[in-house]
């Protein structure tokens, strides 16, 4: 079991995590955060394998991964 949490307020909506997630777990949210960016959001959390790619490519340290 893996759980991924995204700090939406740190997110700048760059999309790198969305692109590099091999399981298509992530996409943009339809709302904006306080900075005005559409943050990354888990759309298919059940597909997450805990591979940590999202954490690795995120330039703003938005991810926390629990196992």
């Amino acid at each position: 079991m893996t759980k991924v949490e995204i700090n939406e307020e740190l997110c700048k909506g760059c999309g790198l995590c969305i692109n590099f997630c091999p399981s298509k777990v992530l996409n943009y949210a339809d709302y904006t955060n306080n900075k005005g960016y559409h943050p990354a959001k888990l759309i298919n959390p059940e597909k997450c394998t805990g591979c940590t790619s999202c954490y690795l490519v995120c330039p703003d340290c938005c991810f926390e991964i629990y196992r």
Partner: protein
Amino acid sequence: MKKVIVKPKVLHNIPWHYCPGCTHGIVHRLIAEVIDEMDLQKDAVGVASVGCSCFNYDYFDIDMSAAAHGRAPAVATGIKRVQPGRLVFTYQGDGDLCAIGTAEAIHAAVRGENITIIFYNNGIYGMTGGQMAPTSLPDMKTTTSPYGRNVQETGFPIKMTEMLALQEGCVYAERTKVSNPASINKTKKAIRKAFELQLSRAGFTIVEILGTCPTNWGLDPLQAIKWMEEKLEKQYPTGILKNSKGDSVICDKK
């Protein structure tokens, strides 16, 4: 459930000023992870340079200093010589290291200073608005070369890490990139290797990291990563440029 991956404790929990998708942040995190894993939070000293990363003394929760443009290797030399037991690194962009700071860097390597340069190469002056840097590629469009860099007029891209690797005082030089999970892991290993060599007093070490500047390249963050791999990496091939094992101390500084 246990938190298995979280922001390294060597980073303050504040937002960074970098543009969306700028890979400076990835490199900061990697340095912090290595310092965490080597348990060096109390011993590490970073020297910030002038460029987009100039505020990184606010981001790392370690002792930090800031240097005038290009002078980080000189400041790091002073710190390391009075406190030889500490891990001393500079964080410099290509505009800082390869233009105004060329002499400082070369002579730090020539002297075999036991310091590590973390060199972020995005081929442009990011902070000041995307002017041409000595590292800019032939025909690359920048705000000061709007028709593309004309090498007849402005010369060729500088190969700084190759120059540093040539110096006897330099024991380790590697060029990496941060373009996908695998290359990010590789970059972390290179940083760790350089820090370990420094702690064994082996001599001067440098890790050049190819990174992006989506804003001044005029590309979105993903296109910028592709451009980095297709164009920047072609001019600056990744790999180990020098690795002299580190089993002999070549320049012990007292």
